[in-house]
């Protein structure tokens, strides 16, 4: 009875500890994410929403999403003239790294329009975004300028991890490993103690 009660207590403690770790980890992630408002992300979401305006069942939701990030009408030239048969207007899309100058950002894009027959036509260009509060809104479409490329054309990704993060990952992995070793050793010792006492 005592052993069972002790086990229940230990289990409850472990659950509380696991929840505390999860909450702590959530706090760290929220802190790390805080303040990031990349124009590339806003541009990508806007393009996705514009593409969804031809999708059956979600047209209204897509228009709402696009309006919050710049409006559907700006994206009209990107939409195919063919009937998409209730599917998204863009089967795939990609954005590149933004060039930010004085509250304005230029984000290169590359997408395919959905065609009923034959190959899906390729559309390339640059979205122009302006700051809106803490975030960004698409204001117009433009032709690409020299050096504006998406990653698949050899351009830079919108963001990438620095050396510190790579080294940090190894460190966190090592820390987790040590933690598990401590747990396993504790479990081994606790079982030996309990069995010796039985």
């Amino acid at each position, binding site marked *: 009875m005592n052993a069972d009660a002790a086990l229940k207590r230990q289990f409850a403690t472990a659950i509380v500890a696991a929840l505390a770790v999860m909450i702590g980890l959530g706090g760290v992630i929220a802190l790390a994410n805080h303040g990031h408002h990349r124009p590339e992300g806003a541009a990508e979401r806007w393009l996705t929403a514009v593409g969804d305006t031809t*999708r059956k069942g979600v047209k209204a939701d897509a228009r709402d999403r696009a309006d919050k990030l710049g409006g559907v009408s700006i994206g009209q030239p990107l939409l195919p003239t063919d009937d998409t048969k209730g599917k998204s207007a863009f089967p795939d899309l990609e954005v590149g790294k933004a060039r930010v100058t004085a509250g304005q950002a230029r984000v290169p894009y590359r997408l395919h329009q959905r065609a009923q027959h034959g190959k899906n036509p390729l559309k390339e260009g640059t979205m122009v975004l302006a700051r809106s509060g803490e975030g960004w809104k698409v204001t117009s479409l433009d032709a690409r300028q020299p050096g504006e490329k998406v990653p698949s054309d050899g351009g830079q990704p919108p963001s990438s991890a620095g050396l510190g993060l790579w080294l940090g990952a190894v460190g966190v992995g090592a820390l987790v490993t040590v933690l598990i070793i401590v747990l396993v050793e504790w479990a081994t010792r*606790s079982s030996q103690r309990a*069995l010796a006492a039985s």
Partner: protein
Amino acid sequence: MRLIGSLARYSNAARPRPPAAATLPAVARKGRPQQTAVGGLPSPEFEPPVVTASEPDLIRSDRYLKLLLILLVSAAFFEGYDGSILALLLPNIQSTFHVSEAVLGLTRIPIELGLFVAFFIARFADRLGRRPLLLWSVVGYTIFTALTALSWDIWSFTLFQFMTRIFLGAEYAIGVTMIVEEYPAVGRGRALGTLLTFNALGTIAVGLLLGANLQDGPLEWRTFYLIGLVPLLVLSFFRRRLKETRRFLEEKQRREEGHATETVPFLEPWKPQYRRNLVLVGTLHMLRSIPLFGSTAWWAFYAERERGFSALQVSIYIIAAYGLGCVGYYVCGRSMERFGRRPTAFVYSLGGIVFAVVLFQVSDKTVSFFALMLAVFFGLGIGPVMSAFATELFPTEIRGQAAAWIRNWFEIAGYVFGPALVGILGDHSSGAIGNIGDTVSLMMIMWVPTLWIIYRYLPETKGLELEDIAEREGMVSAGLVP
């Protein structure tokens, strides 16, 4: 003597064992020094308790084992099939029910929680038996899969999928337990490999049906769920030929004779004698599943948005590379029998990490294809050996429940948090890293140091019958071997 008494309770050493392993000490049986569970170091001189009880027939005929495998692979195939429909047909389902992205995201939470709730079903396998639980799990998931096809709105769909997930999760855990208990040491790994290969083939089947545009038919995505009724037909045909595992029957008899308690308490696997292995195997499952499910959930998005793959290329890559990579499950099953559990787990983990990092870092599409294939081969293909650790290391009376703890608590935690972490940190707008490829790679890198745990702490169970393993693990817990 107290220790030996405790050990006997752990290992059920006093109960009958298969003829091949019945009376000889481990050293004599193997013809070489016995490996300990810890680090594979030679054990001190120790002779395990001699078994004097009568020897029952624990070995099933080859014919029955083949039938069992056929039954279980058909269940595993449809488990993989049903589990993949939602992921691959989500946009179609969203369109039918006219729901926003936000609502769609919200419904995923209760649906995936079904796998966690499956724990409460799967744990009954130690009390009621493997056979009835497996049969009811198949019936349950088939019925709710069919009901999903009749959903009238997103909330009825969510409820039916939640219920489906509960039975799917239970079926998987019980299926693996049955294979481990019924197959002799020689052939167990291969059977596990075959089982999980078919699980993966279920996913490929969904991809192929999508390629055949089944979703564009009159019933749209609902047709996929109606196909999920097939297991019920297979089951109704073979139901009577499926037997209870002999190890469970033996355990049941012990209970009826008063040698063991009738019910298995909820926290039984956490008791000191089992705790070490539960913590060890459970945390390894979780550490593997976080980057693994993070990468599998996000690869298609990464390929399209960060590497410029077309939708068609993504489909072809998934079907071809995934199809070829599935061989990894089978090879894993063979390797764990030939080279051992620990070296197989080590090599597969290392391969999974290396090829996943390559996959999420290179832009060349040919290299990506082979990296995807090998990442699937090693990363997903490690399943059989991980399933072996989750079941073999625990005695029959708690095997089902221990496997359920590992699968439905530890591994499902990775299933839920892995994709969430990648999505939050790699979000192109607000993520701290802002790049899906780098986020997955960093999570894979974090997995590297855990290779040490596999090398240093995981026990080797190659060629050992379950009774031998239980006996030896009991010695480790009792401190009789390091």
